[in-house]
């Protein structure tokens, strides 16, 4: 399951919970796992963005000095 599919599933689980299709326990268990995954991916993406930005800054500085 990818990041977007995880977000979709959280949404569907929420609707299913509101409509009484699934139990609160099942909702909590599933959505907690998915949220943990989504948070992890978001964090990783933020870190990657920072690293990419730093890399670009480094490259630009190096070329300017050269």
């Amino acid at each position, binding site marked *: 399951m990818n990041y*977007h599919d995880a977000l*979709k599933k959280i*949404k569907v689980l*929420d609707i299913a919970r*509101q409509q009484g299709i699934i139990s609160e*326990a*099942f909702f909590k268990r599933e959505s907690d796992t998915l949220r943990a995954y989504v948070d992890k991916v978001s964090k990783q993406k933020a870190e990657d963005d920072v690293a990419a930005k730093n890399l670009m800054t480094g490259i630009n500085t190096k070329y300017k000095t050269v």
Partner: protein
Amino acid sequence: MIGEDVMIRIIDRMPDWTFAVLSILLIIGLVLGSFYLSRFAKNVLRALESESSALAISQENSTLTSQNNDLQDANTQYHHSLQSINHLFEDLIELRNDCHQTYEESLEVIKKIIDTLPLSLSSSRGDSKRCAVWLSSPTTNTLDFHTGSFNFPKDYTNSRKLDIDDSTGGRCYRKNEVIDLDDVTDDPDWLKNEESRGNYKSLICIPILNLGILTVDSLSPFNQESRNIICLYAKCIELAYLQMFDALKFQDEELNGSLDKN
């Protein structure tokens, strides 16, 4: 002058009955001449009439050919759509028969339906269509983007929302009615998404159970065949979502059962 004199002498020497005969011949000639002239005129008139009727027939033929082409297009569109819907129903039946069906399998079928729908709608050159399912979120009073066809941006899943009280889609959900707009800019509830680069002008919104709505955007107005096909696809989507909730319910019950055993 000599010639004239000769002619006068000849006429003077001619007996009286000659004039009577010549007059009769002249009358006969005139009658025959007018008869053939009227016959010629009738023929010309007939030719002109047949030419104008040929022109009318040609025009009617071109109208009928165009109507025939339209009907053939509609036939082809229905044929392809029914073939696609047949495959989708097979997938839905397979899901239904699988007692260990999962949420992911249902989502795959929904994605397949959503991706097939724009391709099933006839489009002229340069035309484009896209569709998406939006699910309601009572906590934020919005319809949140859930699943869209390939021509929607990927980040819509987490970001794009429609206000239930202040959008065209929201009105469709609120009033539980189909909205069909040839030009969305005419709708008082329609708000332009400033971030969107698409120039979609026509919109159809269909309620999906009490969960949300299906939207189909098009660059040009929908024809009646497209409307019928979209309604049929909306029913498929409803079935797939029901199946998805069944899968979740099944997983929940299975988990509860295994917990009870432990």
